[in-house]
């Protein structure tokens, strides 16, 4: 049987396993657990699955997939919640959601942002899964055309968003991004395993872990600011009082359905390319939205379309990540690796013949991930208005709790005190950066992508074409031109605007 052929009988049989009291209950449980794990900084969909795996030992593999798929699928939406409410992405892929999600909260529009995130996640998740499943053979060929030069260009694309972030001056943004890239060089040289910039500190061997740094820069920085300003996150005096409920977010997303479609497409493709990782998906799609939408001057200051773009791509990428998992038996993301591991624990061989021997398991994964998006959307939408109240709590009460949650979160990540220290140090750095107008997201981008960019750049140099490799391969060249265009375009636009104003 060819991979990706649809077997309706097996599909219905699998669907029936879910559509009974026990199945629905497991789906519900998985979704709720996944959302909670996603929403708590430091925990993630992967941790949710690792915790749940022992509980699946008593189940058959198909039911186990239902629980794990639901938990994992729901976590990506959960991660958007703290990004919007407290400026801290639950997981790194949600980082781009911070850009507009948090400013929306500051203007008292967190309900709208949460509603939009829930809707965009659900739609993105659906599109990603369906596109992947419909085009497995075609996408598999396409993905094989991506090699080291293309990987580099994709990460470079992600990095180039620094130029359009719009917080502080361009020079300060580049300085922050460059500093982030420098920090990403700490630890083992990924190519030769030599130690770099570790100053004899064992913790630094593995480099600066992104997640604790992220908590420090964004959340601790926010805590300090809250305490100094003594005002709740949502500034109700300046923000609008009406039309900020969760449904306004749903409507905004549906109005921008073409944007959702495009960003989901971007997310699916990036997710499907093994080696790039999903982190860039949110950022690239955010950049795409900022450059293609009309009236884009509010991006970065609380434009709902920024949230929609990032969240749609972020959930679509998980669908895409199924592709290498299913087509080559190579997990496309950390989460997929745990899926395959869990299947093996259940005694299922995860080679390509999974399509022949265990098709029901594959379908259950699809069904549970689709199902959990629906459940997550319902839960998310019904709770969004309540969750939005968080932004109205007085800082004296809220800040210490937030502070504690972040520190526990960074400790929980790897049970390492070093991570907690990193969080605290980056908290100070974040506070000062904010005060002097340096973009913290730029630093995070550098830290997140610097390593990947370095590896793929040096790998390209190791190939026969050397530096030329970037320009003689069509996809790489196209990506390079797109990057040039997207960096230059804003300058041309602002130049033209100035000319018009002068006239």
């Amino acid at each position, binding site marked *: 049987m060819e991979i990706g052929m649809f077997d309706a009988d097996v599909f219905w049989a699998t669907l029936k396993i879910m559509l009974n009291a026990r199945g629905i209950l497991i789906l519900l449980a998985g979704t709720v657990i996944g959302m909670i794990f996603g929403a708590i900084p430091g925990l993630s969909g992967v941790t949710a699955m690792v915790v749940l795996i022992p509980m699946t030992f008593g189940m058959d593999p198909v039911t186990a997939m239902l629980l794990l798929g639901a938990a994992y699928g729901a976590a990506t939406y959960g991660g958007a919640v703290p990004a919007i409410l407290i400026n801290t992405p639950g997981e790194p892929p949600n980082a781009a959601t911070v850009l507009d999600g948090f400013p929306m909260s500051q203007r008292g529009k967190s309900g709208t942002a949460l509603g939009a995130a829930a809707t965009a996640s659900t739609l993105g998740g659906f599109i990603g899964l369906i596109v992947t499943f419909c085009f497995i053979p075609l996408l598999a060929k396409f993905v094989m055309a991506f090699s080291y030069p293309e990987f580099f260009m994709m990460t470079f694309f992600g990095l180039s968003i620094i130029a359009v972030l719009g917080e502080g001056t361009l020079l300060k943004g580049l300085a922050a991004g460059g500093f982030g890239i420098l920090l990403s060089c700490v630890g083992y040289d990924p190519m030769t395993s030599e130690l770099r910039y570790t100053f004899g500190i064992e913790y630094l061997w*593995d480099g600066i872990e992104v997640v604790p740094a992220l908590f420090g820069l964004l959340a601790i920085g926010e805590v*300090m600011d809250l305490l100094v300003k003594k005002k709740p996150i949502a500034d109700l005096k300046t923000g609008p009082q009406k039309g900020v409920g969760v449904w306004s977010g749903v409507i905004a997303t549906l109005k921008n359905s073409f944007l959702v479609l495009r960003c989901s497409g971007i997310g699916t493709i990036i997710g499907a390319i093994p080696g790039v990782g999903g982190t860039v998906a949110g950022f690239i799609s955010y950049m795409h939205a900022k450059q293609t939408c009309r009236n884009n001057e509010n991006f970065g200051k609380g434009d709902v379309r920024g949230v929609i773009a990032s969240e749609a791509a972020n959930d679509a990428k998980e669908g895409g990540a199924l592709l290498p998992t299913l087509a080559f038996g*190579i997990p496309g993301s950390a989460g997929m690796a745990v899926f395959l591991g869990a299947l093996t624990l259940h005694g299922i*061989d995860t080679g390509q013949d999974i399509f022949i021997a265990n098709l029901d398991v594959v379908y259950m994964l699809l069904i549970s991930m689709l199902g959990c998006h629906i459940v997550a959307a319902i839960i998310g939408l019904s709770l969004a208005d309540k969750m939005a109240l968080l932004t109205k709590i007085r800082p004296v009460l809220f800040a210490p709790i937030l502070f504690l949650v972040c520190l526990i979160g960074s400790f929980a990540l790897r049970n390492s005190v070093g991570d907690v220290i990193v969080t605290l140090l980056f908290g100070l750095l974040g506070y000062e950066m904010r005060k002097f107008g340096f973009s913290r997201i730029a630093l995070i981008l550098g830290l997140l992508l610097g390593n990947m960019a370095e590896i793929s750049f040096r790998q390209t140099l190791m190939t026969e074409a050397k530096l030329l490799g970037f320009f003689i391969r069509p996809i790489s060249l196209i990506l390079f031109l797109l990057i040039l265009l997207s960096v230059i375009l804003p300058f041309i636009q602002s130049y033209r605007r100035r000319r018009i104003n002068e006239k």
Partner: protein
Amino acid sequence: MKSGKEVKMKRTLIVCLVGLLVIPGFLLSFTSEASAEDYPSKDIRLIIGGKPGGGFDTYARAIGRYMKKYLPEGVNVIVENRPGAGHKIAITMVYNSEPDGYTIGMPMMPGLYFPQMFEEQKYDMTKVTWLVTILKDPRVLAIAPNSKFKTLKDLQQAESVRVPIVGFSSETGVILANEELGIKANYISGHKNSKEAVLAALRGDGDAVGFTFGSLRKFFVQKQLIPVAVMGSEKRISAISEVPTLAELGHAEMNEILGTYRVLAGPPNLPAERTKYLRDTIWKTLSDPEFVAWSKQAKRPVEALDGEATAKALAPVMKGYTKYKDILKKYVK
């Protein structure tokens, strides 16, 4: 100028901070009390250097799952993933833990031995307490189907063979084999794991790969890779019986050291009776019918060696590598 309130806030913050660091330390100091009589009376930590979902993780979790049967009521095996630094972080934790039998590990062997050949490490693989070998996994050199090379001879005669690898210390065995076979390899390092390196070869970025049979088996079944030499196995592998071993190709001495070992180990100076308890319990687990059934179905093979046999097998392997120190020096830093 800083306002008085701001200074006060900062001071409160610092007090909170200090409190946060002190209180958990205080609590932790009470928790680690072990009594010698009733071992094991609490959970056993199995610290592994692999990420969730990988080969190390899968074996560790399966053993943890079935070992529970043979442990006293309420005692579990808790698998802890501590990835990083090429498994060094995990082994350093195990090596320096209290030798009370409550912390064991699954070190990557012989990969973890190489760093200590060149530089002093915070562990010494010649001193750990070996508990069991789960599987001795040979390595296989394989050619990508769309490479211009088709046979081992092609590789040996080529000017340059592109070999995607993860890192130089984890693929030391392949580097040595290539040197021995006279293959002029151009290594492309920096892949996240063996699967990504294989994918690089499949899409045409590499000519040949060398990884453990366990991680390449799937690709042989699917005819995605062509195996050309088996390294570190006394006899041919039955699933790919047409492929000769390195010994058959005339490199018996090197063939002996090139296998990889999936092992369990404890810190040095583990008390004799606890070592015995762990070795016996793990041995029972590996021969448990349910575990055996799992291993067969999941295609995660087990060929166990007991603790003493493991120590006996690994000592000459580690010694054998020191002979090739000069070759390795070129690559391992």
